């Protein structure tokens, strides 16, 4: 008997891979925003998710891969009944950003703003350490 696999529609699932090169940030952010629009998120919700994708990817490039620009990152965007789920997988140093010290109380001191964005702008943020890196999952619900 032949088995038949049903591929999800590109409207429901979008996956791509990029290198840890900041030059690729803008393209991936815009892909996330465009996908979120097709899933019915409001303009501001699309922007929020795009910014969070940017911040998460930038953190991976700067910290997980220590600025090395040829390492892989995989992004999966998935339509949910009530919003969008974004999964970002890296094969970097495996440090969980959520376990790092919170942003300094003085807002002019550097550090931690990317995590502030994630915690403020999406509904679910979950870091799951992998044997060889990190999986970040974020969900943004429709308003």
């Amino acid at each position, binding site marked *: 008997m032949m088995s038949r696999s049903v591929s999800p529609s590109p409207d429901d699932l979008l996956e791509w891979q990029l290198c840890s090169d900041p030059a690729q940030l803008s393209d991936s952010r815009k892909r996330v925003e465009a996908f979120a629009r097709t899933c019915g998120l409001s303009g501001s919700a699309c*922007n929020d998710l795009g910014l969070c994708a940017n911040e998460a990817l930038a953190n991976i490039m700067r910290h997980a891969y220590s600025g090395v620009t040829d390492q892989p990152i995989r992004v999966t965007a998935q339509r949910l009944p009530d919003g969008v789920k974004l999964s970002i997988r890296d094969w970097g140093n495996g440090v969980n950003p959520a376990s790092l010290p919170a942003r300094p109380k003085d*807002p002019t001191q*550097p550090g931690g*703003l990317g995590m502030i*964005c994630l915690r403020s702008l999406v509904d679910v943020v979950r870091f799951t350490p992998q044997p060889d890196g990190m999986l970040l999952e974020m969900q943004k619900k429709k308003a």
Partner: protein
Amino acid sequence: MPTINTSSDLIREARQEGSEVFCTIAGEIDLHTSPELRTELLDILQKTAAKNLTLDLSNVPYMDSSAIAVMVEALQRLRKLGGSVALTHLQPRVKGLLEIARLNTIFTIKE
């Protein structure tokens, strides 16, 4: 009002008036472009010995935390001289990010 020469497309115009420098920034600023913006802005501050900096952000539709870090670094330098950084004509996404970062009260925000 003397015009300041820059080598970056991110700074569309820069000019000095007394101890104040006015820069018009253009484009999306993220981790890819913010190092160039940092280099140019700090170079301008150094060669003009400016005390106050005004950044016109009307042509900046998007920036991320790395761009915020550049502006904060400029602010910290100028504060040591008793100066400040003003931001004008913020687009909604930029304004929202400054609010999340709690930096909307640190910079002087002008319409």
